[in-house]
């Protein structure tokens, strides 16, 4: 499997000596383009640490990561393959947070268009891309609105559009349905599945939301820093 995201033997240790804590221990994951997988585990199991390693926010202690067919991290060969992790995050990883965390002083279009603009694309191209995504997510009618004028569901859809703005091979979603009721949570999952399929993006959804766990075809359980893969119910929510 060349595309998507592949992780082998990923470990993360905080501290040294007697106070050292192994937050991740030989984690292996493989997510294909267009696939949505769940990452499930109790608090303190290592979910957030794994997400931060995958998001190039913290450096793993050991392991190997491939993203979109390129090695991005190899602890045996100097760690990160690029020194510009900021550009790596901007161009190749999408983020969806528990709360939308939209920039409050930018309207919906510019919240989405900001990423392509940061990547150096022209304003017009960036805004056209933003509108295309907003249309795909049924929020184009709120394109000129400020985040404070949107409902919670609309804000989350805009944050999904932002994550897709630079067409990243992978999106990391950190409990994206936590503040939503069942109906809206399932709506978000429908959107994520549709977007993954439409844009051939691998999506990792960190969650302990019982409402959405049955929708995954594949789930990674994480416990004490170790992951176990299992097949999910893959309930049809289309």
């Amino acid at each position, binding site marked *: 499997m060349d595309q998507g995201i592949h992780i082998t033997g990923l470990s993360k240790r905080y501290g040294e000596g007697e106070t050292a804590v192994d937050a991740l221990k030989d984690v292996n994951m493989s997510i294909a383009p267009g696939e949505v997988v769940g990452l499930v585990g109790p608090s303190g199991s290592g*979910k*957030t640490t794994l*997400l*931060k390693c995958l*998001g190039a*926010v*913290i450096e793993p202690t050991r392991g190997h990561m491939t993203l979109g067919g390129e090695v991005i991290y190899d602890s045996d060969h100097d760690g990160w393959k690029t020194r510009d992790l*900021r*550009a790596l*995050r*901007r*161009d190749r990883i999408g*983020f969806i*947070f528990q709360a939308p*965390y939209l*920039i*409050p*002083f*930018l309207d919906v279009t*510019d919240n989405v*268009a*900001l*990423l392509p*603009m*940061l*990547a150096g694309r022209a*304003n017009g191209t960036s805004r056209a891309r933003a509108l295309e995504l907003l249309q795909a997510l049924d929020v184009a009618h709120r394109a000129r609105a*400020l985040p404070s004028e949107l409902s919670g569901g609309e804000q989350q859809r805009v944050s999904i559009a*932002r994550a897709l703005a630079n067409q990243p091979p992978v999106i*990391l979603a*950190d409990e994206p349905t936590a503040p939503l009721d069942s109906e809206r949570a399932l709506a978000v999952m429908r959107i994520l599945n549709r977007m993954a399929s439409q844009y051939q993006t691998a999506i990792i959804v*960190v969650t302990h939301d019982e409402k959405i766990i049955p929708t995954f075809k594949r789930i990674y359980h994480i416990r004490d820093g170790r992951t176990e893969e299992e097949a999910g119910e893959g309930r049809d929510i289309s």
Partner: protein
Amino acid sequence: MISLAGRDIAHSWSKFVLTGIGLGLLIGVTLTMAGVYRGMVDDARALLSNSGADLWVVQKDTQGPYAEASTIKDDVYRSVRGLSGVGQAANVSYLTMQVSSGNTDRRTMVVGFEPGQPGEPGYLIAGRRLLRGHFEAIADIKTGLALGERVRVRRHEYVVVGLTRRMVSSGGDPMLFIPLKDAQEAQFLKDNDAIVNDRARTAANPALNRPGVPGLIDSINASQTSNRNVNAVLVKLTDGYPPDQVAQEIRRWKHLQAYTRAEMEEILVAKLIATSAKQIGMFLVILTIVSAAIVAFIIYTMTLGKIREIAVLKLIGTRNRSIAWMILQQALGLGLIGFIVGKISATLWAPAFPKYVLLEPSDALQGFIIVMVVCALASTLAIRAALKVDPATAIGG
């Protein structure tokens, strides 16, 4: 690329404008303080220019007549007139005192001058020059006196027949011009009770009231009540004569002190106003520090309020310099709003000040640059806080 700072300012414009107004009022006070100093300097220069003199002849070893008391005899001007290069020489007297008009007391500098001679106000904005030898006055408009109004100086009342402007003492007191003889009397003549008391003392002194010497006691009394002193002689040179040379002549041969225009300006600006200038300078420093502290506090607080957004911006790939530039632009924007408000405020309230406030465009430009530099420096605290934000804080707990 989107202007993040511009959008943020537009989004929370009311906060920016209100803060800018507060800062602006402070900047307005700062500009006004600078204007007060400029006004003092300009008043001093106007005082020298409007007197029409090239040289000021005063008592030896004094810096009179504006900075120190100076007394010289009123016939000195005759010998000064005889010097080569001297076109005109005239006596003047200066006395800062309270004068009353109706029920109002006003602090003024009463100037005694000889009409048509140096010391006369340079120009009138209303009324006429003095035509009578006594009891007429020309007032600076800052005295608040109107044409035809009566003003009491010591024992006598004077009618205001002319108004002038920009004629104030180094202390900022507006001038009231009256005939020299009247001014000498006002300055040196004693009140009636004192004269009666002096006469009784003289009469009681056997050495001064000798029997068989008729007229002696009357002569002594007359000399005690008459006054032959003035404060300075103002000299106008004939064209082409170097003031330094004539001043040197007067110092050497007349045992008097003579100051050129440049020397008098040095006394007024560098010596007389020096303490006030330092005082104002201290205020300016304090106000600048307070302004910097306010900008720093506001920008820092606003930045702390956006920590999560900054973490997200960093996580999605915004460069540190873009975030720093956003904060810097906001600080500069605040400074710009503050400066505009400050400049307008200072311009509006300057005429209401009792002393002349001179708002120089060069001071405004300098003030603008200082405000921008101070705002830029003040933003460093917030920029530091923003750059320390870990993008990881946007993810999870």
